[in-house]
């Protein structure tokens, strides 16, 4: 039985044996006698003097904030194009000043979202979430394409924002198991560009990309390009073999299956070589294999410990996720079986642990 057949067989077996514990259409009876779960309530205690201090600080900052908002000033314009074209104007502190839907699809996506004064990364998260929710980006679609364009008079800042946005979008898509090709570009804002964008109802970023494509291939028509989705533009670039390496930075995200296959092969090769060299019986404990020592994360400085949001997990006497000052389900720290003796020393909550693929996947 090859690996593929084995996996299919396992899947069928589990689905076949997975029991129905509730009848369809009925909710569980919560008066079950042997339920021992206890829920913990959040304990909120507040100190009155702290409130006064907090209020004072807020008042001071509030005045400053008010002053800064009286004269809004656009520092950067970031465009996010999938097919919906969304333009984000931010202040110098990278907080959103204004979000504009450049076409009807974008209006639908934004759906009255109020993202004014939120951090750019929070707004990006919300917009990407909405794009996913509305199906403009989809885990099932292998051809998702996102164009991120950043315009800022300060080139260094434009580059910084370009990189941050790309990473932010990549991260969000990965969390949602969505494959996408992400184009990023810096752009200089000109009146002509603004006029073109306004005329066609597209973002500055897309307008800039279209203009650049037109410069590369004069058989193309501006009006047609402006109406195309990013996916269609990508296909056109590929079909006409238009060189765009000087126009945009592409960052392809391999989907998990492709990456998995490649890693699977590499690991298999390594394990085969080790087994051949040491003549280890298959029944032996695989955890004694040298390559496993390399995998185990015993050091605090290992790559996995650089994940964002990593915090200590808490002991869990109860089975229900406890509500506490820190969000997230309670994790059992006790590890019952010897097979867990070589588990990583560092511990994480389940809350938003992002693995840096470039580091971790090189481990094997």
């Amino acid at each position, binding site marked *: *039985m*090859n690996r593929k057949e*084995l*996996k299919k*067989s*396992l*899947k*069928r*077996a*589990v689905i*076949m*044996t*997975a*029991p*129905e*514990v*509730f009848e369809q259409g*009925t*909710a*569980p*009876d*919560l008066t079950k006698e042997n*339920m021992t*779960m206890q*829920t913990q309530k959040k304990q909120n205690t507040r100190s009155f003097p702290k409130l006064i201090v907090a209020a004072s600080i807020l008042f001071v900052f509030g005045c400053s904030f008010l002053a800064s908002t009286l004269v809004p000033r656009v520092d950067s314009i970031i465009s996010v194009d999938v097919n919906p074209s969304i333009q984000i104007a931010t202040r110098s502190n990278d907080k959103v000043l204004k979000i504009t839907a450049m076409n009807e699809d974008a209006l639908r996506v934004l759906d009255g979202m109020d993202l004014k004064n939120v951090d750019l990364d929070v707004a990006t998260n919300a917009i990407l979430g909405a794009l996913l929710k509305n199906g403009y980006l*989809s885990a*099932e679609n292998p051809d998702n394409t996102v164009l991120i364009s950043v315009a800022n008079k300060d080139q260094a800042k434009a580059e910084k924002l370009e990189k941050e946005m790309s990473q932010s979008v990549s991260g969000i898509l990965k969390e949602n198991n969505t494959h996408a090709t992400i184009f990023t570009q810096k752009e200089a804002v000109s009146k002509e560009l603004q006029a073109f964008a306004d005329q066609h109802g597209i973002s500055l970023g897309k307008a800039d990309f279209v203009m650049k494509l037109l410069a590369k291939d004069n058989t193309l028509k501006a009006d047609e390009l402006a109406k195309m989705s990013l996916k269609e533009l990508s296909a056109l670039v590929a079909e006409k073999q238009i060189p765009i390496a000087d126009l945009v930075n592409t960052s392809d995200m391999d989907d*998990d299956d492709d990456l*998995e296959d490649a890693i*699977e092969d590499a*690991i*298999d090769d390594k*394990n085969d070589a080790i087994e051949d060299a040491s003549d280890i019986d*298959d029944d032996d404990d695989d955890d004694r*294999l040298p390559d496993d020592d390399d995998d*185990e*994360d015993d050091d605090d400085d290992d*790559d996995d410990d650089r994940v964002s949001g990593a915090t200590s997990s808490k002991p869990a006497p109860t*089975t*229900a*996720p406890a*509500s506490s000052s820190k*969000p*997230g*389900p*309670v994790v*059992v720290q*006790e590890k*019952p*079986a010897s*097979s867990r003796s070589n588990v*990583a020393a560092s*511990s*994480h909550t*389940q809350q*938003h642990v992002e693995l840096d*693929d470039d580091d*971790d*996947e090189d481990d*094997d």
Partner: protein
Amino acid sequence: MIENSKNKQGAILLSDDLMRRVAEKDDKAFEDLYVSTRPAVYCMILSIVKNPSIAEDLMQDTYMIVKKSVENYEPQQKPMAWLYTIARNLCYMELRSKRYTLLDEEVLLEVPCEEEQESQALDRMVLEKAMQVLDEQGREIVLLHVVSGMKFREIATTLHQPLGSVLSKYNRSLKKLQKAIER
């Protein structure tokens, strides 16, 4: 009636919105949550306790706790990861309570009925072998990936393991299982 978001295959998408509706005592939402997560949760439990009847009990307990504790679910927490945590905690509590003894060589899958087709019998044998020859972690990783479709990164997060370890374990476990079946 509010319809749950579905992907192109028609499967219900787990979302904070669904969890919110479960918290609001929407029975249909709870049913949708149960239907869409049942095989995956069963996988997780079975991979730990190896005993189908105990796994069934624990699965029921899991969903009862989900129903009762859903107000503790924090948005952005990922519903599946939250469910898995509850299920795993229950499993470890059950194991610690020593209400039963796991026999490594004994896997108490249901006795197949006479009408069971050969392919089903083979599938059942494969699952039994997995329960017998793989250690707990290997079972969890293989079942979560193969049956639940979880990505390796998600499994690494759920099990608090480095991605590299998960990948290595997965491959070694599959190889081990393959060899056990071929014997």
